């Protein structure tokens, strides 16, 4: 079947099988940041935005994205680099395999809530597993990023 969607701001028409999962679709269209870590919707590695909401691309049919907007980390490179630098400054990226999903969901959090508390951060990101970092370094990186963002905004005002 044919679907038309907006992938990272580009309109795209493609033939897909009815059971093609969105993760496989976006990977086959060059969005290799999107990773698969499980088959049971538990790990968060495959997080993409569907109409700007973070979802697990392993659990969505590509067909369901027909007529919708899909965003992966490939479409958010500037934001990823800006925020990711704070993770890198903690050494918390470690093996990196969970990073794209984690960073996608963190960016979703920042869009929903400008300055989340530690508890809000943890709860929002609870569906993003990481086996390397122990999460503490990621939290430090997020806190530092938020502080930097706040300072930048205050300076601008």
């Amino acid at each position, binding site marked *: 079947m044919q679907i038309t969607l907006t992938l990272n701001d580009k309109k795209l028409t493609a033939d897909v099988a009815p059971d093609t999962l969105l993760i496989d679709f976006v990977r*086959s269209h060059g969005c*290799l*940041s*999107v*990773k698969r*870590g*499980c*088959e*049971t*919707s*538990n*790990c968060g*590695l495959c997080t993409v935005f569907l109409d700007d909401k973070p979802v697990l691309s392993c659990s969505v049919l590509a067909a369901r994205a027909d007529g919708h907007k899909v965003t*992966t*980390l*490939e479409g958010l*490179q500037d934001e*990823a*680099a800006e*925020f*990711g*630098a704070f*993770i*890198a*400054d*903690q*050494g*918390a*990226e*470690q*093996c*990196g*395999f*969970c*990073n*794209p999903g984690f*960073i996608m969901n963190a960016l979703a959090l920042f869009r929903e809530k400008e300055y989340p508390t530690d508890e809000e951060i*943890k*709860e929002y*990101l*609870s*569906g*993003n*597993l*990481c*086996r*390397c*970092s*122990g*999460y*503490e*370094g*990621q*939290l430090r990186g997020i806190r530092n990023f938020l502080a930097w963002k706040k300072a930048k905004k205050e300076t601008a005002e």
Partner: protein
Amino acid sequence: MNTVNKPFRKKDAMQLVTGQPVYMDDLVPADCLIVKLLRSPHANAIVKSINTAVAKKVPGIEAIFTWEDVPQDARRYTQAGQTYPEASPYDRLLIDRHVRFVGDVVAIVAGKDDKCVDKALKMIKVEYEVLEPVLDYHTAKDNPILVHPEDNWESLCPVGGDNKRNLCAHDECGSGDIDAVLADCDVVIDHVYHTKACQQAMMETFRTYCSIDLYGRLNVLSSTQIVFHARRIIANALHIPKSMVRVTKPRIGGGFGAKQTAVCEVYPAFVTWKTRKPSKLIFTREESQIASTPRHEMEIHLRLGANKDGRIRGLDLYTLSNTGAYGEHGPTTVGLSGHKSIPLYSNAEAFRFTYDVVYTNHMSAGAYRGYGATQGLFAVESAVNELAAKLHMDPFKIREMNIVHEGDVMPAYYGAVNTSCTLDRCLAKVHEMINWNEKYPRRDMGNGKIRAVGMGMAMQGSGISGMDVGSATLKVNDEGFYTLLIGAADMGTGCDTTLAQIAAEVLECGLDNITVFGADTDTSPYDSGSYASSTTYITGKAVEKCALKLRSQICKLGAQLLDCSENDVEFDGKTVFTSADPSKSVSLGDIATASMFGHDIPLEVTETHMSPLSPPPYMVGAAEVEVDTETGEVKLLEFDACVDCGTPINPNLTRVQAEGGILQGIGMTLTENVTYDQRGWPMENSLMQYKIPTRVDVGKVRVEFENSYEPNGPFGAKSIGEVVINTPLPAISDAIYNAIGTRFYELPITPEKIAMAVAEKEGAV
């Protein structure tokens, strides 16, 4: 120091956080053959017949291989990534007619896409002769049912194994008269401690891509910690010359020891070797959970004797280790359960350490961060905590009385001298960090909630003494930038960066002036691989030696250009100049250019390092928990730890190693369980059932360092990667004991166990 002990960003950090395609499945051609495995539904069975004719007719299927394609009387092999001759027995065939655990490989299917391969897998008809399995490891030794009855089972090393007894390894050692000492002790703590076959659960599952290169050789791109061992393992499994195999690794998505075993490499290798076509195998998470290489389940019977004053006098430790269906890392992990726990109390008068490693029809165990030390330290540290409670002593005080110090001889650590140790300072630091005096042992918060604290200590090694080999090659390129070639594998740990930091320190250059490449069996200098906490200490020292030698080569060529003797020049990282007159100089860039134009002094050096010692890093950890005594739920409020890893080469990365290891230890203590049903089916077969900690499961984790200086390590460094997983087990267990007064000897400690223990005490059940 300019570069060492500085928190540099990892060299690959920005590539990783922006999601660049650097992992195996991001790099391989989309149209390669898809390989999947048909796995046994039986824990112990013989494949009576297997019919692949119909499955082979599925459009798109390229090949299906079964035991009939693998000579059953040929030499067996091990998938353990260890130095040859491996301690692990040669007990595998690539496909064995005798399947020995639920998940053992019955057939390999290769086809053009997932769909056709999935279809073909369903169409293979297998008739099994189902045999009774050995599922209880207590009954494995000398059981009439043999996991490996075959005659071509082979043990290359004298580890005490005997396949006709289901025995993978056995040993006994000791010092002093342990029975007499224990008989003379005022108190003997005597218990059996049980830890499960926990999974590394790295986020990237096992995966390998294979192709045939220009020279007709098998090229293997694998997510592995051990490229050189993998080359041998693949050649052994396929019975082809090692010269025909090349193994490289891309960025690895985590390993933690899992990828120290060639769990998946041989299958696509076989497909590509036979079909001459590129192929890839990516394990599902389920396969990574049920047919991989988890921690060895161990049961440790410990008798620990002490005097009333708290002086620990003797430890008698018997470990029963379950290696599962195959012996990968079986004979070696078990050793650490004693050799890396007993030495914490090296002032004891006597010790005895005995073990059996048995075969069962569970999935094969393997290497997981901590490698047996984790299991042993849970037993020993729990026993010392129990001793403290029994003697009404503070657990910190009893440690202060008994711990090993720098300069002590450690009889249970092969008689080695403790060359660097700040364990005493780590104790003091953690005591302060957690505010022990205020919190110990418990505080009743009302509403059935009790807060309590507990602690534990740990040690590990730094590489395998007298065995592990690390190497580095450094070369000077155009304009004077350096390339560092290594055979160690950065699996997220950051060794590409930390090793470059060591080189930059010696070469007095910026970190950006060094590029790193690893690992490739064709081009990297030999390295045992990244395991056994060896990379910083062993390969790091090789890098230091290599950089020093390269400096002298730079000076040699610089002197030639300056027309003087190399003894008369110095190098400051930028220029070579004469000591007498520093204005007479030549820049590194010009030296680099000269090395490629009309000169024959090589600016390329390879150095290798081996260490007769394995200096232990040390750690102390303390946990504060809040227990809901009615529901049994445990909140880990805080975990404080202090590590002695010698000089941290990169303090950011050592900290994150520690935090990550602690979290894995927390998971092992509280939630990560592995159980089998009566048929031998593993129950925790997904991340839905096997619960690794999420970020809402833990409170604060804080890590500090008390640096010793290890004279044998690069710039005083020891290891960090493994020691960090060990302390949560005894610390959290003891905190729970302090909360409810019941001590648990088996992990994980679930809410059910806690609530039922409390209810039983209160007579409420």
